[in-house]
């Protein structure tokens, strides 16, 4: 019971009440616990993400052998030119680094939106087409939890969720419109961003956004700017991340001994409405795929039978048999007429046994194969 209490503490105070209900049922029974076994590799729990790191030593990294010779002096590639850097180093950061020269109005953006975006994101960004909803969310909605059927979901939109406006203009420039990304001019980019921010009720200095340019863009503060943690900004950013991962409670992790017996029973939730719409449909059957109609035409029964029973000798002339596709050889064979060629194929000729040894074939099947071979050699 002491250990169970420890587990409850690790879970955080908010759930103790509900968890106690389940633990009280087996409080009388002694439960067995097991400590986490040591790992098979020497590890140090010092990783930024709350995990372990492994050293490279004595030519090994965990189970891997590694080359410990110096790589100093391995130096391929060349310096980028100033124009190359200008072409590629165009990311847009929260401080405005990378913002292009230009300007655009929300009104212009509205027209562009109707033409390029509404088909997926809905009128005024209201969604409904299956693609992300861009407008209409509220910060209050972010606390919504669908713990019961019928409860509302959090509404994560640009205005209610995105912490930085730079993300929006950068993303639109690189990745939108969906089917032809990177097609907007800087002015169109500002227009579209202005429209979407205005639709989301984002303001600059308390005023509605009507036009955006490089200068006023930097003044935008998104409504959910402080909705995220750990704080990754500034000189302490990385250390804040490290501190966050130091505490397993922060990300729902469980540590320590684990219960092995009489751990308690909980209820069983079954699938209410199974999602069965998967492509291709579920099956574990092992059979031959159904013939593709288009492929079937290209591979007639005669062609298949030829591959199976005749090609071993007739594919090339190395066996002394006329090769399929060798026009001269087949023209010579056909001088005596089709009947004679069929007769030879059925009864054997020269080094060829009757039906090429494929006695399972009927005479008519052999004739079909001969026809296929002759047709393929014209």
């Amino acid at each position, binding site marked *: 019971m002491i250990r169970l209490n420890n587990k409850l503490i690790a879970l955080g105070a908010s759930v103790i009440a509900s968890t106690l209900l389940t633990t009280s049922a087996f409080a009388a029974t002694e439960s067995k616990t097991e400590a986490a076994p040591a790992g*098979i590799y020497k590890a140090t729990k010092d*990783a930024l993400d709350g995990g*372990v790191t492994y050293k490279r030593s004595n030519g090994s990294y965990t189970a891997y052998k590694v080359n410990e010779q110096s790589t100093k002096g391995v130096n391929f590639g*060349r310096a980028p030119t100033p124009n190359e850097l200008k072409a590629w180093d165009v990311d847009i950061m929260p401080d405005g680094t990378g913002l292009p020269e230009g300007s655009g109005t929300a009104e212009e953006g509205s027209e562009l939106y109707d033409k390029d975006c509404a088909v997926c994101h809905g009128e005024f960004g209201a969604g409904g*087409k299956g693609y992300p909803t861009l407008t209409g969310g509220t910060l209050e909605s*972010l606390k919504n939890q669908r713990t019961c059927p019928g409860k509302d979901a959090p509404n994560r939109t640009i205005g209610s969720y995105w912490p930085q406006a730079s993300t929006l203009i950068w993303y639109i420039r690189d990745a939108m419109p969906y089917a032809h*990304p990177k097609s907007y001019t800087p002015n169109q980019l500002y227009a579209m961003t202005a429209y979407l921010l205005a639709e989301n009720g984002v303001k600059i200095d308390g005023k509605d956004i009507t036009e955006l340019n490089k200068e006023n863009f930097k003044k935008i503060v998104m409504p959910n700017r402080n909705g995220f*943690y750990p704080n990754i900004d*500034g000189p302490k950013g990385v250390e804040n991340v490290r501190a966050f991962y130091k505490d397993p409670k922060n990300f729902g992790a469980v540590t320590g001994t684990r219960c092995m017996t009489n751990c308690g029973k909980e209820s069983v*939730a079954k699938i209410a409405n199974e999602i069965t719409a998967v492509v291709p449909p579920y099956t574990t059957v092992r059979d031959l795929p159904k013939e593709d109609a288009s492929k079937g035409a290209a591979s007639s029964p005669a062609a298949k039978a030829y591959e199976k029973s005749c090609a071993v000798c007739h594919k090339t002339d190395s066996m002394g048999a006329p090769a399929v596709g060798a026009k001269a050889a087949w023209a010579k064979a056909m001088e005596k007429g089709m009947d004679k060629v069929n007769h030879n194929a059925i009864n054997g000729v020269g080094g060829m046994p009757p039906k090429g040894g494929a006695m399972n074939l009927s005479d008519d099947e052999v004739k079909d194969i001969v026809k296929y071979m002759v047709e393929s050699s014209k």
Partner: protein
Amino acid sequence: MSKISENNLETTTNKAEQSSRREFFKRTAAYSVSAIAAANILAPAKLLADDENIIHHTEWGTTLGDELNKYPYGIPSAYEHNVVRRTSALLSSAGDMHAAVSMTPLHELEGIITPNGLHFTRTHNGVAHIDPNKFRLMIHGLVEKPIVLTLEQLKKYPAESRLLFLECPANGAAEWKGPQFNSLQFVKGMMSNAEWTGVRLKTILDEIGLKPTAKWMLAEGSDGSEMSRTIPIEKVLDDAMIVWAQNGEALRPEQGYPVRLMLPGWEANLCVKYLKRLEFGTEPWYCKEETSKYTALMPSGKAIQHFYPLEVNSIITNPCPEKPWSDLKKGDLVEVEGIAWSGHGTITAVDISFDGGDNYVKASLKGLVLPKSWTRFSYMYKYEGKPLLMQSRAVDDAGYVQPSITQEKAIMGLEGVYHRNSICTWEVRQDGSVHNVQVRTDNCPK
């Protein structure tokens, strides 16, 4: 054979000798028939029916097979055509399959290597097809010597190979509020495990000189979505790689051909595909996929940003809904098998429960046990023909224990979407069929 017989007959002129040979054959045949009859009489009353597959010659045993190099790049047996990735329109926008996800058929995999054609795929703007001759990688920002590399130049750097899992942080996201899919493929198929080959990023940085002020790295893709993410330098210098090979061959286009970033144990989304540019800086970039998405919204209404590691996890692969125990008889001894993995380190133990988590037994790990890689576990179980609630619970060398659903949702709530690593349950029914259920305590009043 027939020719030799003919020759024998031609050279044999003595008719009497021929006749005596025929008698011999007849006698032998008669003996054979009576021997079979005798065996039938002596056999127990319940004689097994003959298996036609054994009694008769097979088609493949009596015909010529394909020419050996008919498929210069080999393909699986035609009979395996149902072993494929699967998609669901419900895991996409309006059924659009350019920004969607395909699931690995975990129920058909053996060992810890996912064949390249079955590796799960997530794209944000379709699968890009990059001309390797036009590929360039730029590394710049807070480095002493910024560089541009061609693919051939990149591949000249000393290479290392690692077996690593890649998992979409949204693996199992449909299941936060309750079970939805009745298949292993859709419950956990947004992950795969492969041997990745490339150069450690540290090897390149040691040469081009990372400036001490650098704290973050931007990794940017070159596809239509220009997928990008911010990564802390500490990870870059620990075990990050730039990889160009997957299970011994070039990356598949679905996995980022020709080059992707590999951050062992971290969200697959951070392992940027179609890699184009790495920039080093002092401040994080706030990319779209680390703000709008891939952030975990908590019950407080605030969200975790920069949520990197995929925490300790496991799943039973045999049995599973697609591979039930319907053909087992009471008393059969059968192997329970599964996969465990942790982005925090190496798997140290896996426990199995048959009663929905009330009691656990220890499974054995088997095969290679490697950091940040799938690890197989095994338990021999005597099937009693009774209903079961089967679970697996993994432990790693960072000391993390896979949480129950109740434990995980107590902290994470139900709307976080990402990093769901709580224990899964397969319900084995009386008839041996297997169903996805969840053992959980919910607070919704009935």
